[in-house]
């Protein structure tokens, strides 16, 4: 089931756009994540695809068929909600069977599907309980079971894991991903959590300011962020964005006197924004030649996140492997140098070029993404 969004827009008041110019194609069997900060319109977009909210502009096609004006039940899809949306007065079994009974399926077929769905989410023994007797994670699994019991090939999920605690979230993440793969579902998954999107999705759509910022695979988005918003949104800790001026004589981007970035030819203006991931700096203790002081340090066991204030006034976050065994002291003087990849954005925030080399001592981004995905 391919889903095609053609220049979709939504306006509630006729003046301002909640969503504007959304165009993309979602492949059959694809895990497609829609990511963005709260209020960016991602849930609205999902509800427009579901048919729960009308579309102000544009067209939606499922398998080549225009469904823009079809009611939800004729779009052959299921939906899982953030707050589960279970019927409190029905048992787990009846909750899972709810949609099937509406489609006038015969009782045996319903039983078979419900059993199968409950088995898939490991809730077989809980069939006769009421939702209130289940934990949050179990309730969400009932909601997932309800979605997979139907024969719909498209599944929409609206922040299904954000009510769960961190540990459970991690577990459900891989469970949902496995189910989607196993059943070959076309999944549209809305989340505000970049880690969820990175680890689960085949492709990600980043929404912000009611527009698409970028669509791409997790790797593409991490390695080639289209603009500063995407660059900052993906990756923990956040990418450092520093204002820099281009010095044509040195062919360098200068942040301040003591922090400069080499760049290729072809720079055509004076001011840029340099984006550096926290792993893209090296930090050395140097008494004579220093350009920053330590503001704060957080130990995470395998690494530390160090906040430094550059002499030019900018604050940066740097991750440092704890093998270096630093004893970070507040106000300690340090020498910060670029190391590895950095990004050059123009003044409007658009990616202009990528600089540096990835064969430094820092962990490369590809490696980081791979670890996160595991």
């Amino acid at each position, binding site marked *: 089931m391919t889903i095609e969004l053609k220049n979709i827009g939504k306006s509630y008041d006729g003046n301002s756009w909640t969503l504007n110019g959304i165009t993309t194609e979602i492949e059959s069997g694809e895990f497609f994540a829609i990511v963005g900060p709260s209020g960016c319109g991602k849930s609205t977009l999902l509800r427009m695809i579901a048919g729960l909210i009308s579309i102000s502009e544009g067209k939606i096609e499922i398998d080549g068929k225009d469904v823009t004006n079809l009611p939800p039940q004729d779009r052959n899809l299921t939906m899982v909600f953030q*707050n*589960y949306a279970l019927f409190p007065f029905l048992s787990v079994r009846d909750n899972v069977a709810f949609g099937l009974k509406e489609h006038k399926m015969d009782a045996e077929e319903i039983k078979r599907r419900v059993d199968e769905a409950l088995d898939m989410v490991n809730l077989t023994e809980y069939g006769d309980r009421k939702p209130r007797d289940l934990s949050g994670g179990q*309730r969400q699994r009932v909601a997932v079971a309800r979605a997979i019991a139907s024969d719909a090939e498209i599944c929409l999920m609206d922040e299904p894991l954000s009510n769960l605690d961190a540990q459970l979230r991690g577990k459900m993440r891989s469970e949902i991903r496995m189910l989607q793969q196993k059943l070959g579902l076309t999944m549209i998954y809305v989340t505000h959590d970049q880690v969820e999107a990175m680890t689960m999705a085949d492709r990600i759509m980043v929404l912000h300011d009611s527009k698409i910022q970028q669509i791409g695979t997790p790797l593409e988005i991490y390695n080639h962020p289209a603009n500063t918003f995407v660059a900052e949104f993906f990756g923990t800790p956040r990418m450092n964005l520093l204002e820099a001026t281009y010095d044509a004589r040195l062919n360098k981007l200068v942040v301040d006197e003591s922090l400069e970035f080499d760049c290729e030819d072809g720079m055509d203006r004076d001011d840029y924004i340099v984006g550096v991931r926290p792993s893209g700096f090296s930090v050395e203790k140097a008494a004579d030649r220093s350009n920053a002081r330590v503001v704060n340090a957080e130990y995470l066991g395998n690494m530390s996140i160090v906040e430094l204030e550059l002499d030019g006034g900018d604050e940066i976050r740097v991750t440092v492997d704890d093998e270096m065994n630093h004893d970070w002291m507040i106000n300690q003087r340090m020498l910060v140098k670029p190391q590895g990849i950095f990004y050059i954005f123009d003044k409007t925030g658009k990616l202009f070029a990528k600089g540096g080399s990835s064969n430094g001592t820092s962990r490369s981004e590809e490696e980081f993404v791979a670890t996160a995905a595991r």
Partner: protein
Amino acid sequence: MEEVMSKKERISRYVVLCLLSVFILTPFVLGLWTSFLPTADISSGSLFSTHISLDNYVNAMKNTAIIRYLLNSLVISVLTTAFQLIFCSMSAYAFVFLKFRGRNFLFGLFLATMMLPFEAEVIPNFATMRQLNLLNTYSVMVVPFLTSAFGTFMLRQNFKQIPAELKEASDVCGLSHWKFYTKVTLPYAKISLLTLASYSFLSSWNQYLWPMLTTFSDKYRPVQDGLRQLQSQETFNDWGMIQASAAIVVIPTLIVLFIGQKSFKSGINEGAVK
């Protein structure tokens, strides 16, 4: 949440509560007690008489139309309750789940009728009923109360608490409005429906003014007016028997409250959404 109270505070609270319950319960106990006493003892004021018997009850059932009154009231109250549940829940559903122009204005109009005391509507209602030739029938006591603004208001508030996601999930399943109403809304609002049922049953059971104006024969007269009737029919009031009748009349009220209370469990809708 349970409060931590000092012993002194707890004792003083209990004393106040005990005094209040004595104050409230005394008339009831007194009424029940006198219903077992012969009228002669009651009128002579000897309340601590030992001539206790069920004679008054037997008397009431044999010599008065109390059973007929009970039956009439039962028919009227059950019909009123049933129709109020149906019509109030349907209109409340419309006010919450159907989007139409002037919805809020219409609801405001609904609420406005609540501000009007029933006494103010008595005369126009009476005139209407007389025109329709419905005086002295069951209909005259049921039709004006088929729906109530209060019931609609109460259920609307309750339906509004149904999570929007349940409606969306049902829309995705393809539930029609009628099915969402019967399969989701009504079960979800079970407690409120029971509350409304008890409320409308009791208010119908305790009606006095309206039936007094519109019924003229024992065939249709409900209990409260029947009780009044017992007093004036005889030259000499048989107080023991009247007390016994009153006690009989109270029994259904107690049953409704008892059943109602048992089902007013809270937390029944937990687990729908986080």
